């Protein structure tokens, strides 16, 4: 998509407009970011910065235990969180948005209801869900047993095979309002005449969605996907509340931010700041790298579709 030729602002004037944001961003985001980067290049004795060690902390991450094992495992779990969010949160969000788009009545009511979990502090989301899913008192299992689905009742958070998916679903529960609103808005912006044209051609609802609506939504899907990726890689409050700092059970819900937390604050290791900063920098680089690559690739897909 080529950028529209706009009334160009002279560069000096543009820079003037940029100045307040740039100063604020530079001082309170870029400068701390750069400082944090230097943390990872030094060795530390407790809270005292010692010698410059170049990339040694990064080398240690990839060659010594426990990081050599835990880093790829945590990254794998973050990747699954992303895949799960795409499958659960974004597809449900899209489905609900489409359903709501087709009806006027109660649309705003439903939008608000579905978005309510987003307004609740992440402090208690994990607690509420671990209560609901408790194998002892939880109503979820009680409900499943009541309708004869005993086989489906699980120790949800106690089983390594299901625990991570519970994290995915709880995250989706809290965040589904985001794709819902974004897709809802995008659907609202679509030109109704294309739909009508397709309808006159005799296309069914499913066909219209597949061949008319979906391609028009592609750019929005791309934006939502990138943001979902970033959120999934940085997930912390919900995994922490549901699995503790070590990613219970048996590391099945361990993610990058938990690895950082443990390394930085939960060990008596001398070089904790150096190694934990390296963990965070690696995470940052992966997020930037994948986001940029994904955006490039997606622009290509978009061009082919339109």
């Amino acid at each position, binding site marked *: *998509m080529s*950028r*529209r030729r*706009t*009334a*160009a*602002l*002279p*560069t000096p*004037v*543009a820079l*003037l*407009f*940029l100045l*307040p*944001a740039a100063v*604020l*961003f530079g*001082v*309170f*985001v870029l*400068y701390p*970011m750069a*400082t*944090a980067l230097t943390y990872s290049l030094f060795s530390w004795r407790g809270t005292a910065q010692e010698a410059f060690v170049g990339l040694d902390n990064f080398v240690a991450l990839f060659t010594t235990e426990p990081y050599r094992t835990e880093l790829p495992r945590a990254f794998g779990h973050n990747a699954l969180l992303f895949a799960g969010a795409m499958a659960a949160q974004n597809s449900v969000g899209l489905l*609900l948005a489409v359903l709501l788009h*087709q009806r006027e009545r*109660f649309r*705003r009511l*439903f939008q*608000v*209801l*579905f*978005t*309510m979990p987003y*307004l*609740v*502090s992440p*402090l208690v*989301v994990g*607690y*509420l*869900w671990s*209560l*609901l899913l408790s194998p002892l008192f939880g*109503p979820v299992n009680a409900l499943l047993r009541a309708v004869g689905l005993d086989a489906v009742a699980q120790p949800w958070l106690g089983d390594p095979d299901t625990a991570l998916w519970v994290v995915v679903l709880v995250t989706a529960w809290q965040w589904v309002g985001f794709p819902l*609103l974004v897709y809802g*808005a*995008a659907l*609202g912006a679509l030109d109704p005449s294309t739909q009508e044209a397709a309808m006159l051609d005799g296309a069914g609802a499913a066909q219209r969605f597949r061949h008319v609506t979906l391609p028009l939504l592609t750019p*929005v899907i791309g934006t939502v996907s990138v943001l979902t990726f*970033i959120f999934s890689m940085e997930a*912390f409050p919900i995994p922490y509340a549901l699995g503790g700092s070590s990613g219970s059970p048996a590391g099945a819900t361990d993610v990058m*931010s938990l690895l*950082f937390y443990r390394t930085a604050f939960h060990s008596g290791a001398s070089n904790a700041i150096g190694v934990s900063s390296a963990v965070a*920098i690696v*995470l*940052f680089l992966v997020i*930037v790298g994948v*986001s940029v690559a994904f955006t490039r690739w997606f622009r290509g897909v978009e061009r082919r579709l339109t």
Partner: protein
Amino acid sequence: MSGTTRRGGAVRRAGVHVVLWGYAAVALLPLLVMVWNSFRTDQELVSEPLGLPVAPSFDAYREAWVEASFSTYFLNSVLVTTASVLLSTAVSLLAAYALARSRSRLMTVIEQVFVSGLMMPVFLMIVPIFYLLDMIGLASTRTGLILVYAAVSIPFSVFVLATFLRQLPDELEDAARIDGAGPLRTFWSVLLPLVRPAVATVVVFRFVPIWNDFFYPLILVRDRERYTLPVGLTTFFGEYQTSWSTLFAGLVIATLPLVVLFLVATRQIVAGLTAGMGR
């Protein structure tokens, strides 16, 4: 139309109903647990974590409001959240205008730097941010907190606002320029009225996380007089004991303003997203 399709349509509509109301229940159930548990005592909560309030008790609300100096925290939260969202939205608007209306290569680079801020894990930056505030004498102040929140909001705000501004036709600006208006004047009187929906979007999507955030003030603020609501809430979490009913009561108090804000703003948000994300 034949009878079968009409019946099929009715079944389909019923199905849609079930899906929508069913999901609404899933979305609301845990919140109801929170609300009704706030009317129970800690003892009831422990003996039966999910029971109904037998004799509703408002003790938790009284305790949350009085003991936890919620009135102070509430005012701090309002002040910090409002000021930081306004500040970040104002500077982001200016920056987004510059990015959207300039064709310089430099601007593309600057925009990417801004957006990279979205990808920075906050837990990595927090310690350097503390030392920075400490150095310039803003540690433990609301001003420091406002500036930090405003700065970390810039990536998202610029991202959304710039996308939106690029959608706007430039004829109006051309007209203003021909009338002899300078860039600031054009921005102020021509563009600003048009970007209202996008501004509503940015305001709400930044307001909610800042209002709920406890991490920054927990690390950056030492003076209890300057705590925000969520930090006040963390004092109900003990190492060995957590006062759940007070916590839930505090959370209900903390969440209500958001619900109101959200109810008021959804129309604007959806309009803002329509234009901002629809490209």
